């Protein structure tokens, strides 16, 4: 007897329906039930497979694959049960059952040691609890950070406040001293000093008003600074224009730049206009390669005062501090250009 015959037509055997005496009710009952079981056993693993496929983070998903395999095999045995009602393919049916047996027993064996591990996994309730706990901790930590930030802002404001108060005091002292000083050169020196202190004070005033307490827009600062210097000057006939691009700056950039503008505008006011009439233009523009170009130009008599005096050495030093390049051009007056790297805060 060949294997083929053994599988598909075992000699001398009759179809299973024969055992049921081909009683139509019984055959229908068996065939119908097996058909439904088979369908269900194909449907269930498909649903399981879909679930595992979608939930890729599932722990021990291989056990579900085993379930899928053995249920599919079970379903197949039921389909063979239907077939063997009429066709005696008991060999094949037996093989399918053997495969089912192997898969079932493997699943059964694998499942026992897995149960403790599955039990050790956090349940949805535990996860919810953990999550809630985590959220509580996050929100309390956030509140702590928020409080620390507010504390920091408060301290920074207090520091700026004290710096400003001290600068105000320094200004008052200089003012008092200047009024008692008769020597014109000394008086002028004290006046220049007050101008420089003003630049420092204005920087801190801008910082106090800024949202983040560390940077502010330099455009309104330059406008106020230059206007104040002009108003402090002797000539009513000198006009001023300030055109500055918006640029967020911090202390490190604003102080040297503010002092440079103070020196240069003061220089123009003092030396450019012997007749007391003229114009000073302050501009700040963004250039190429993250550079900013500060220009202070007057239409005065065009004689450079650079190279001597305190103002000149302050300008030289601050240009170096800003890593900038300065160019002085005599062109219908005096024009000073300072090309500096834009501050990192921008």
């Amino acid at each position, binding site marked *: 007897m060949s294997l083929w015959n053994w599988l598909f037509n075992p000699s001398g055997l009759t179809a299973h329906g024969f055992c049921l005496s081909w009683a139509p009710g019984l055959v229908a009952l068996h065939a119908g039930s097996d058909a439904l079981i088979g369908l269900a056993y194909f449907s269930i693993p498909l649903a399981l497979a879909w679930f595992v496929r979608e939930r890729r983070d599932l722990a021990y998903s291989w056990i579900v694959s085993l379930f899928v395999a053995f249920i599919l095999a079970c379903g197949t045995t039921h389909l063979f049960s239907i077939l063997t009602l009429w066709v005696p393919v008991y060999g094949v049916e037996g093989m399918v059952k053997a495969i089912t047996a192997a898969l079932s027993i493997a699943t059964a064996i694998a499942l026992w040691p897995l149960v403790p591990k599955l039990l050790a996994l956090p349940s949805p309730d535990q996860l919810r609890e953990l999550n809630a706990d985590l959220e509580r901790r996050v929100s309390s930590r956030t509140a702590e950070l928020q409080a620390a930030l507010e504390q920091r802002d408060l301290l920074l*404001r207090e520091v700026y*406040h004290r710096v*400003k*108060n001290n*600068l*105000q*005091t320094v*200004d*008052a*002292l200089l*003012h*008092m001293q200047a*009024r008692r000083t008769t020597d014109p050169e000394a008086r002028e020196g004290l006046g220049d000093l*007050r101008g420089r*202190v*003003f630049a420092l*004070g*204005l920087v*801190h*005033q801008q910082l*106090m*008003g800024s949202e983040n307490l560390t940077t502010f827009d330099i455009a309104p600062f330059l406008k106020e600074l230059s*206007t*104040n*210097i002009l*108003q*402090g000057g002797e000539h009513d006939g000198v006009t001023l224009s300030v055109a500055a691009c918006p640029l967020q700056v911090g202390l490190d950039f604003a102080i040297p730049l503010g002092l440079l503008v103070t020196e240069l505008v003061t220089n123009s006011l003092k030396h450019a206009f012997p007749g007391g009439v003229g114009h000073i233009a302050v501009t700040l523009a963004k250039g190429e390669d993250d550079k900013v170009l500060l220009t202070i130009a007057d239409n005065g008599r065009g004689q450079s005062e650079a190279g001597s005096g305190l103002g000149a050495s302050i300008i030289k030093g601050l240009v170096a501090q800003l890593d900038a390049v300065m160019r002085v051009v005599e062109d219908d007056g005096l024009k000073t250009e300072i090309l500096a790297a834009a501050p990192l805060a921008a």
Partner: protein
Amino acid sequence: MSGLSDCVLVVEDEYLIAEGLRLQLQDIGHTVCGVAATARDAVAMAEAHRPSLVLMDVRLRGSGDGVDAALAIHARVGSKVIFVTGSREPATLERIKLDHPAAVLFKPLFGRQLQNAVEQVLAG
């Protein structure tokens, strides 16, 4: 405002800052009728001198702050008040608003900031 004298009262508890303000006012041609360091002195001096303008600090020595003093001066004398404060804290600003001040200036007051404000307030 009738019955007010053409002078300015400075209310500031830090001597040097008060002195600085006084000098700045003098430089721009105003008479300073006095410097008060506490809210009580401020009200008493305002009643005595009837200034047309008061420069008012918020944090003062002793009991009561600049807002208390300003409210009392408004009610009893009617001077215009410019607040000069070192603080931009919202709580302070809210309190200052109670008095409907003529202007609010923030320290440090340098250069022309005081002069511009005083001229505007006295003109308005």
